[in-house]
């Protein structure tokens, strides 16, 4: 696999090759190079199968980390290609012409994270939510519990018992917590 790492570093400035298992590795590129890297991996290096594509919200360093997972069936090896995009203006190149299922993933990213892939077909259509007017909901600053308590009414009579407090009450009511 190290030849692949050197080749990608030479062609597209890829870095931080990490072997997670003997059949899974990950690598980082710059977002401007992501389309060319994936196209080269698909056409020349035999990574023809796109397993999935998703994003991770790294809110602490104000970035979305994209993860494109490709698989080479001949060698039985999977490669996750990462790139960081800016969280305030999340735009990344679209790969809908490389794989036929990528447009659905990009449509999902637009709805769930707010990541825009210009040119991706039907990316502004609603995917799983209808009439959603709040933050893109997979972002870490969207509080799902607060939204649920505000919008949907609870059935009264629900009691929650914190196990530590309950046991303390039962066994050692006079002891400090």
């Amino acid at each position: 696999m190290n030849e692949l790492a050197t080749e990608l570093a030479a062609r597209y400035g890829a870095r931080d090759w990490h072997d997670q298992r003997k059949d899974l590795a990950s690598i980082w590129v710059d977002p401007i190079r992501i389309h060319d890297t994936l196209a080269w991996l698909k056409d020349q290096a035999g990574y023809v199968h796109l397993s999935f594509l998703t994003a991770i919200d790294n809110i602490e360093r104000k970035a979305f980390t994209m993860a494109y997972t490709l698989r080479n069936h001949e060698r039985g090896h999977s490669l996750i290609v990462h790139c960081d995009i800016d969280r305030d203006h999340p735009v990344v190149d679209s790969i809908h012409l490389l794989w036929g299922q990528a447009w659905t993933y990009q449509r999902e990213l637009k709805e769930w994270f707010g990541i825009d892939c210009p040119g991706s077909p039907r990316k502004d259509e609603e995917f799983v939510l209808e009439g959603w007017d709040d933050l893109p909901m997979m972002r870490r600053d969207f509080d799902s519990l607060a939204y649920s308590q505000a919008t949907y009414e609870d059935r009264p009579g629900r009691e929650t018992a914190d196990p530590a407090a309950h046991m303390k009450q039962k066994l050692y009511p006079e002891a400090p917590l």
Partner: protein
Amino acid sequence: MSDKKLKPAPLPNEGLLPEERGLFCDAAPREYEAAKGWVENFLNWARAESLWILGFGTGCGAVELRPLMTSRFDMYRFGIQARPTPRQSSVFVIGGYASVKTLKRIVRSYEQMMGPKFVVALGSCTINGGMYWDSYNTIKRIDQYIPVDVYITGCMPRPEALLAGFQELKKIIKSGNAEGQNLYARNFEWYKANQKKVIKDWNMPDYNW
């Protein structure tokens, strides 16, 4: 009783485009009185022994409807059949959680069903949200949006539990207490307000008849 006294005011139907409003119903649902004496008992017996359920697998619970319909647990011997359209069914089985998108279709299908109609809610998600209690997309109490007659607890309820639930529903119908449809008509504004609070893109008539 004259017809004028019972006829409610027409509904605004704001969700529809102005050119479509004439095509859809604009009357609110009305309550129905029971017949008197032995006629009602006979009708209740007939309703209870031929419960036709709507073929709409709304959630996880639909996976336990398959064993119920087939030869091992066989609901057909109780008179329960699955029908493909709301116009021919009388029981709506809400199979578990309801996301907001599904809730809109549940409301539409429920309102399109012909009376007398009953609702059976499966699983703990219909009671208090179940394990999706902190989800932004699932409702926590289905009886805020449509009236429910019987709750069957479990996650998933077994087919035997479903049969027991249907037996309970039959008891309720035969004793004349299955008033879900009349409850809906009586508190129509309250139900509609709850539904519209949650379903944001309301592009159907206010009462889908």
